[in-house]
């Protein structure tokens, strides 16, 4: 048992020191009915080599994104993460430490969280950001409940171009917490009029930008409509790299930004762990969920950092807390912060430009295929095409070649069988695009 340092001799000596006749005696408070004398029906311990072999065999049954031409987005994006990021987050001092409750010996964690909060605030154009939530979807749900708290209202309007998973998570919460959600129908045409839906009972409107179909929206009119009725505008961003190229939600009048940070620093990981970004205006800070790091001074007057405003949190306020959240995405946050530090202003804006230009290139190439139309006038690195046949079948056929062509909208809702959402990042090569175009042409023949 390579992880267990006690030897049989240690165990004997320790039982003697405790004065217990056996380990069983230490479990004497367990009711007789629940004491398992025999082992469970599970395999015995195995060495590293054996475990590695078994798990590698499972992994080999999957098609890794990097091994094929790959055009999937839909809330998770394949970007290149510099090697230094993974190297640094694996340092034991980061990997194996806990929530920084003891600031004197966790200044490392606290300082990077402070840097993270600043980066997120800058990116989103907001005043202040927290130290992360689980992911973009749960951050969106927290944004809605926060808007309810801030406004004292209990009706929120969700755009039909919000990522369907995000919508569903908000709806689940609404059902059990007991607030009202007006979810608009899926809106590939971009014709919904959200401003018209805002009324005096509305706590917030939730809108995604770029939206689920990839469309870029000018949110300023909507922000004005919300504010005119005392409602908040919640802006969701699933592809945070887009903010290297686009006007920030803050500039367009957002009151809360809930975003998925996976694109920076974090791998696809089959959907998790990811990192939920959450930013808002200074005046709402005491209604924010999640952990916050603040600057202060130590006993000798030196600058330092601590967890702060924890009177919002469950471990202090218990049932009166702003949220039950206790865990953040610490290590994913660190990866985000390191990657964004490496990128810097110049790197992020150039990365965004590359993503955009490559997506534009693919959009033009696909539009040239007979029977294929590109739905979007505007987009960042993701767009939607209408195919002459159901997209799901084509995606499955291309997967066998193997090309991962995108996500069919039918995966989330019926009635849009012919729509396919594709994303293009800096990792996509011209050869990848050639392969997709050729394969698509052939499958449409």
């Amino acid at each position, binding site marked *: 048992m390579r992880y267990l340092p006690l030897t049989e001799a240690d165990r004997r000596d320790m039982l003697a020191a405790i*004065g217990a006749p056996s380990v069983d005696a230490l479990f004497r408070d367990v009711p007789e009915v629940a004491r398992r004398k025999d082992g469970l029906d599970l395999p015995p311990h195995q060495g590293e080599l054996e475990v590695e072999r078994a798990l590698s065999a499972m992994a080999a049954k*999957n098609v890794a994104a990097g091994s094929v031409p790959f055009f999937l987005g839909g809330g998770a994006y394949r970007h290149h993460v510099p090697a230094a990021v993974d190297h640094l987050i694996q340092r034991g001092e980061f990997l194996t430490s806990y929530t920084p409750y003891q600031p004197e010996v966790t200044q490392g964690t606290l300082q990077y969280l402070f840097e993270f909060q600043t980066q997120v605030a800058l990116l989103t154009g907001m005043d202040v950001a927290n130290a992360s939530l689980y992911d973009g979807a749960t951050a969106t749900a927290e944004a809605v409940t926060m808007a309810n708290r801030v406004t004292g209202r209990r009706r929120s309007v969700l755009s039909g171009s919000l990522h369907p998973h995000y919508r569903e998570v908000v709806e*689940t919460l609404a059902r059990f*917490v007991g607030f009202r959600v007006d979810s608009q129908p899926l809106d590939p045409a971009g014709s919904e009029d959200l401003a018209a839906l805002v009324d005096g009972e509305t706590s917030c409107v939730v809108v995604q930008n770029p939206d689920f179909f990839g469309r870029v929206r000018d949110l300023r009119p909507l922000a004005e409509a919300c504010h005119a009725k005392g409602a908040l505008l919640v802006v969701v961003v699933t592809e945070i790299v887009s903010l290297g190229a686009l006007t920030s939600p803050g500039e367009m009048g957002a009151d809360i930004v809930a975003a998925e940070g996976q694109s920076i620093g974090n791998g*696809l990981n089959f959907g*998790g762990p990811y990192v939920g970004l959450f930013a808002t205006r200074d005046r709402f800070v005491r209604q924010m969920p999640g952990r916050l790091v603040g600057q202060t001074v130590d006993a000798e007057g030196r600058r330092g950092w601590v967890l702060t405003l924890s009177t919002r949190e469950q*471990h202090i306020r218990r*049932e009166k807390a702003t949220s039950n959240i206790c865990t953040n995405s610490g290590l994913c946050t660190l990866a985000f912060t390191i990657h964004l530090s490496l990128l*810097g202003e110049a790197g992020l804006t150039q990365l965004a430009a590359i993503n955009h230009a490559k997506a534009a290139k693919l959009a033009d190439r696909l539009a040239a295929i007979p029977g294929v139309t590109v739905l979007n006038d505007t987009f960042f690195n993701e767009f939607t095409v209408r195919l002459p046949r159901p997209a799901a079948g084509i995606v499955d056929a291309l997967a066998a070649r193997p090309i991962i062509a995108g996500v069919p909208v039918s995966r989330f809702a019926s009635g849009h069988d012919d729509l396919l959402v594709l994303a293009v990042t800096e990792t996509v090569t011209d050869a990848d695009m050639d392969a997709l175009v050729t394969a698509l042409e052939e499958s449409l023949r």
Partner: protein
Amino acid sequence: IEEPLIFEQGAEGRTGVDLPAPPAAADRLGGLARKGAIGLPGLSEPQVVRHYTRLSQKNFAIDSGLYPLGSCTMKHNPRLNERMARLPGFGDLHPLQPQATIQGALELMDQLAHWLKTLTGMPAVALSPAAGAHGELCGIMTIRAALEARGDMRQRILVPESAHGTNPATAAACGYAVESIPANARGRVDLEALKAKLDSGVAAIMLTNPNTCGLFESEIVEIAEAVHKAGAFFYCDGANFNAIVGRVRPADLGIDCMHINLHKTFSTPHGGGGPGSGPVVLAESLAPYAPLPWVVHGPDGFRLVEEADAASGTAGTIGRLKGFHGQMGMFVRALAYMMSHGGDGLRQVAEDAVLNANYLMAGLGDVLTASFEGPCMHEALFDDRFLKDTGVTTLDFAKAMIDEGYHPMTMYFPLVVHGALLMEPTETESKDSLDQFIAVIRALAERTRQPGAAEWFHEAPRYTPRRRLDETAAARKPQLRWRPPAVTQQAAE
């Protein structure tokens, strides 16, 4: 050595990445191209590597020493698990890929579910919750859904005084009124007080077992019976499952629903505060309400069910709790951990964790003040009676431990004892390590009785990158982000 913020180290135009020029193409941003600068600093790779290396050196971690933070299970994190989570077939897999290309991932989720179900004796598990508190939310929602399905709109949830803060917060988040149950003199739930509160308005009890005093709820079977008799559900906070894994199956205790912190019992790294993972095991009565997605066996292998639908038996689901399918990276690590230990090793984990805690209790019982009579489970709870009249507080004592090279234990929790010191050594500490720790704590305990002790302890820690930090100032006028000096100056004027 002082380490400035990255914002104080940047220079314009410098970058830590080299990117090719973008292909020329007309902009499709619809007039919404960013106009001003973002304000991010430019650093080179050497600067970034050194910066975060230096920051890491200001942290204490399991890898640096004993980290006896009670209730947090700071055990060794095997590096094999990190390697496995980074296999391209897991780490570089998109959650929305076609099902034919993710069969190994679904198999892994199915395997993990199998282990969790076998270890708990429960028939179903929901994998998607992202953390313990998220698992609680999931559990309480399934309970509410089950009650609603039988038209039973109960309004209250009972929570012991000693519970983690997440328990009442979760209950409240789901719209329940929270009622506290007192502890008895033995540090357990007062069964009679509980029974007195149980009626047809109670939806559930949320109980941690072993509880946060490090004690097994010895009357738990009776509690379960009483709860079920009242038509309520029994939610268990599984944060302390480490103490009993392989030896006790929660199903055998009458529990209906329990979350499991993979980052505690199954050793996925705490990572400075996350990410965690909080799967929830469910009894037969709650299984139909499990959140989406479900992994099911189909004719062509494994299949993800993502939409509520009668055909797949998911019509009762509470719906989706999280984007995509759960904390896959943590699933891989946890399964690697389980397979490494096997059924036999996991049982040994519980035994050694309990043995280590009782050894601490035995080694410190005469100098500190144990709150309850022994034996404890995986953690040893002391209160601050031993500090009486010394002028030293629990906090002071903890800070003095830092200077001796240890991370403090959990303090002032659970709330049921005064000035609590809750120590959880975990099973991955050696006897040598515990002996050294005991010697240091004994010496510190003796020092509290010496002249000038109050002042000496109050000055601790001395040898850390920072001395005690002013938390009050931080909260009074929060500075939650860096701002350029010019702006700060303006603000100060």
